[in-house]
């Protein structure tokens, strides 16, 4: 569903590449998380999957990027938009500013896709329930809290039912339970609707619990790629400016203190940690 072959990209006037020799594939219905320190290239990669890099940001790109059969480096952004939904990390960048209620904001994408009104309404109602926005339909998008705006930004993209949804730190402003719910919603989208989910994220606890696969970027390069249990327990994580979950940290401390066998694999989730200590 997503295929990158030797992708290197430089922003205009940049001396070092933001993406450096990236090659990987993500299959249909996979929930793939990308992690890395700030500046590692996560946002650039998300933008590249939606064609904004290089089409909007310019700069120079080599290699190829294919998403849902589209060559996103060259296909018109309007064509890509129907297939790849991009959720920005700052909802202020997503909200159109041209609509005055939450309901109309969600309808905006559907109007552009010329979805008939009769079909639009149930889809909007469904997605508002999904995103916990019931009761806010007639509020101005600008009268919402940061967390509500973030859920609105996600709903506005998901309502278009993209084959691939790309999210750049979509839970940064959500309360802990709200963040977990977004992960859980994306998990079920991937499992039941076969939507391919590609998400840049810092909340490793939920990445560990919900994603199928984790990519680690460091200075634009892909330095690790595998299931969460393997990637997030790796002793290399610190070298890439990342901190393992507390579950992994406390288990490692217990091993070092001689309280648990050094041979037991380190846990990355709460469930695994309970198993590790029992």
């Amino acid at each position, binding site marked *: 569903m997503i295929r990158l072959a030797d992708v290197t990209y430089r922003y205009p006037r940049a001396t070092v590449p933001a993406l450096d020799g990236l090659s990987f594939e993500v299959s249909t219905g996979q929930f793939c998380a990308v992690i*890395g*320190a*700030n*500046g590692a290239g996560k946002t650039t990669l998300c933008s590249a999957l939606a064609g904004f890099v290089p089409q909007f940001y310019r700069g120079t790109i080599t290699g190829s990027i294919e998403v849902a059969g589209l060559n996103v480096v060259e296909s018109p952004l309007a064509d890509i938009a129907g297939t790849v939904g991009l959720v920005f*990390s*700052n909802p*202020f960048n997503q909200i159109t500013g041209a609509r005055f209620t939450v309901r109309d904001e969600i309808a905006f994408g559907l109007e552009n896709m010329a979805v008939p009104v009769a079909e639009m309404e149930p889809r909007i109602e469904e997605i508002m329930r999904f995103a916990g926005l019931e009761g806010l339909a007639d509020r101005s998008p600008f*009268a919402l*809290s*940061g*967390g*509500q705006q973030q859920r609105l930004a996600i709903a506005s993209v998901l309502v278009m039912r993209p084959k691939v949804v790309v999210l750049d*730190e979509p839970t*940064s*402003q*959500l*309360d*802990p*339970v*709200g*963040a*977990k719910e977004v992960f859980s919603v994306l998990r079920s989208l991937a499992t039941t609707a076969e939507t391919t989910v590609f998400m840049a994220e*810092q909340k490793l*606890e939920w990445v560990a619990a919900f994603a199928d696969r984790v990519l680690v970027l460091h200075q634009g390069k892909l330095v690790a790629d595998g299931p969460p249990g393997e990637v997030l327990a790796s002793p290399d994580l*610190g070298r890439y*400016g*990342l*901190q393992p*979950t*507390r*579950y992994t*940290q*406390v288990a490692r*401390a*217990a091993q070092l*203190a001689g*309280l648990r066998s050094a041979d037991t694999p380190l846990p990355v989730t*709460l469930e695994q*940690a*309970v198993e590790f*200590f*029992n």
Partner: protein
Amino acid sequence: MNLVIDDVGFTYPGGAEALRGVSLRIQGGESIAFIGENGAGKTTLMKHLNGLLKPSRGRVTVDDWDTREHTVAKLAARVGFVFQNPDDQIVERTVIDEVAFGPRRLGQSETDALANSVAALEIVGLSDESRTHPYDLSASQRKLMTLASVLAMRTPVVIFDEPTMGQDARGLKLIGDIVEELKREKRIVLIITHDIDFCSAHFERVVAMADGRVLIDGPTAEVMARADLLATTNVEPPQLVRLAQALGLPVAPLTIDGLIAALPR
């Protein structure tokens, strides 16, 4: 410096009741984390402390000043506020001028304003960016810059709204160090955060809010042990506390050593 919030209610124009009777006393040198679900009233409450909002009922005093009787500009000398979205507070064209904006407005001499700004930029690790345009910084750097702007004002009270948002492990450590430094200087540090692990690492008192009210207010370990109450405001206890509970340990550890010590030998 003492802050007193006395039975404060606040209703936004348009009718949304954001605060429904909040009372808190905050002493000089205290550091407090405000947690709770989106829309609980945390930011609304903090905006009462620097006078951006005035209570619909009740009273807020910053030392001897009733916030209704003083302008935001005047209160800014006592209460520094770092907004959640850095782009809400950027006005200048270079990072150094942006950071010096507050100190200059507060009437610091040009020499002091610049010296405080240079020092603040060094603390947040942005010394090399002082001539950069604020919008040429990355989002996480802009956030650090707005932290520096408030540090440079040298106010006795500092409020951070979601300071760790979008920060990686290095940024988290930096912000944690800043909080610790402010605590050493005996300033009042108040943060709003969804980052429960950050809050339990650096704050001794936690106020959990829900639906415009204070749900629990107490020492961090005691508050974090109340998973049942926290759940009602969309907060989960820190990872270590949840692990201790899942293992049936009778403690709510805030540190790795704390959990290790509680493990049966």
